[in-house]
């Protein structure tokens, strides 16, 4: 069912739920792995999120872009259970779910890689990968089992620059640390991996490593939701874009529908003249 939504409407749709979604989201939330409908979040008088709709399909890389303060991190935290939305629904595989704590989110199969990576510099790669869910053998840690599994996971993700999984994480480069953080998410057999600004602090070759990793994840059927400032990275790796502006998702869709100009316009003004008249297909 092809529906042409209103690409330039404001964040709050005037119609009921059955009408075309203002931001370009699929009217039926059952098709995608993760769908948000009408997610709002306020902190007292501050409205951080306004009626956000978002679709994150499996096997694709969805980039969440927007200026500083647009609400990207807040939206992510609602998905990963750090915040509870003030209103709205979250659909996982078509069924409505309630995510109140990070544990609920992890139980669904959502893994979040935060901007600060949440790694322990004084522990090695194996210890970080298994932090919180170590394997034991007769009440003592089964180091060999964990080490073998870590090596396999890194090899599967084609992370070849790491010399030894017994290196301390504090001695790895930024790209390698990202790789370890992502590999930890993958090892938990997550279906959705959320990454908050994964390439923000990285150099060119490290960025390449991480973008390849993101691509590998999507090719394995995992849904990847990436927050990024960097349009170059976004256009090189994303399959879909969702643009946030002042707490709302103002536009989303396949990447082919966007270019740098329209993306920048959407980020900075919430509207884009260059795609005002284009007909968008909301779903893939």
């Amino acid at each position, binding site marked *: 069912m092809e529906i042409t939504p209103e690409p330039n409407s404001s964040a709050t749709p005037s119609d009921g739920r059955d009408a075309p979604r203002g931001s370009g989201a699929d009217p039926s939330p059952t098709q995608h792995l993760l769908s948000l409908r009408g997610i709002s979040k306020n902190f007292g008088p501050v409205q951080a999120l306004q009626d956000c709709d978002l679709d994150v399909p499996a096997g694709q890389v969805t980039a969440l872009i927007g200026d500083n303060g647009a609400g990207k991190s807040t939206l992510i935290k609602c998905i990963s259970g750090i915040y509870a939305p003030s209103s709205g629904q979250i659909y996982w595989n078509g069924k409505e779910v309630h995510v109140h704590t990070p544990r609920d989110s992890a139980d669904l199969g959502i893994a979040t890689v935060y901007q600060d990576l949440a790694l*322990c510099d*004084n522990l090695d790669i194996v*210890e970080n990968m298994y*932090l919180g869910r170590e394997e034991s053998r007769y009440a003592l840690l089964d180091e060999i089992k964990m080490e073998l599994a870590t090596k396999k996971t890194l090899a599967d993700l084609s992370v070849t620059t790491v010399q030894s999984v017994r290196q301390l994480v504090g001695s790895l480069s930024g790209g390698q640390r990202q790789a370890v953080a992502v590999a930890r998410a993958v090892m938990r057999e997550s279906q959705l991996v959320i990454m908050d600004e994964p390439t923000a602090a990285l150099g060119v070759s490290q960025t390449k490593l991480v973008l390849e990793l993101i691509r590998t994840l999507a090719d394995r059927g995992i849904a990847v939701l990436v927050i990024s400032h960097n349009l170059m990275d976004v256009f090189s790796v994303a399959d879909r874009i969702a643009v946030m502006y002042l707490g709302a998702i103002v536009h989303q869709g396949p990447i082919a529908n966007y270019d740098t100009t329209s993306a920048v316009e959407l980020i900075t003004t919430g509207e884009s003249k260059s795609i005002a008249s284009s007909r968008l297909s909301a779903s893939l």
Partner: protein
Amino acid sequence: MEEVVEAASRLRLQVKRIYQGDAGLVPILIGLAALVAYFQIRNSVFLSASNLTNLFVQSCYFILLSMGEIWLLLLGEIDLSLGFVSGIGASTAVILVDTKYHWPWFIAVLLALAITTAIGALSGFLVIRLRLPSFIVTLAGLLGYQGVLIYIVDKQGTGGVVPLQNKYIYDMVNGNLTPLATWIFVIAVVAFFSVSMLRSDRRRRTSGLVTRPAWVTIAKIVMLAGAGLAVVLIFNTDRATFTVIKGMPFAIPIVMAVLAAGSLILIKTKAGRYIYAIGGNSEAARRAGVNVNRYRLMAFTLAGLTAGIAGLIYCSRLGGISDGIDAGNLVLESVAAAVIGGTSLFGGRGKMIHAVVGGLIIATIPNGMGLIGMSASTQYIATALVLLAAVTIDSVARRGSTVTV
């Protein structure tokens, strides 16, 4: 052929990286050897059996209290009250066993340990629930428990000193294993570690993981055996002038048991892993699902228990308990011992063995300086310089390695 060479060099690089972290203990051991050499040159009595036995026994208290502190240092916390906590443990045991109460020694000992463990848990509870810095809470403990200690010792009406007469507690430090038992004990310990090293190497090799080369393991076993032999010879040499005293003091196996238990927990269990993680990045541990407060409380409690054992050793060596115990200094020297051994004050780095090396150094300084006739004031200054030197050397040694913490 080329592949073999390449594989060998890659393996060597990997092994070197894996063991770069261990380089930390070597400079300190060299420092200890240098100290020993210096004192021996100045006074050849230093390396005599009687003085060395004395030295080992003097170091036991510092080693134990330092191991207690390491539980907290790993978290990035500290417990300044452990010195007086150990004193309370000592006084409880001595008072219950030798004054008007005359309780059986093992009940007195168990009660003393229970009390110090509870005090540790209380410190932990205050730090966690009230969210106060551990420095402040335990500083208050240092002052408060000193008051408690003076009160309970003075209340016995024996002039501020309660002498210890109970044979069992007294023998912890002053009684010995027989020479034969000493041999058996040391051989058993060396054998146990050698076998477990070889077995773990074999398991790694059969799983296809990079393993320590066989010659390194053999070298470690040889060094361990050598150290064991030296220890047996020191203890089994007659060290008394008028009678015959031979054998390892009971305090040594007690310290080794605490060392083994502490190391086992830290290296081989989830709880130990979590303690390192919390010390390294407590927020990361929290997000990974670790119950941070549970393990912090556990560390404070274990520190209290270890301080209790230290207190028993203390009153055994002193032959009683005095209200003038300089526990404020003792706890600081124990923290210094841990840091000299290689434990970081900021959390996330340290091992129980650091307490042993550091404790030996802290005890060697007054022992050696006493032999060459230096005053107490010089001893304090010397200890300060050694602490600074050890930390500087340690930090420089680590700067060049891939181990950045």
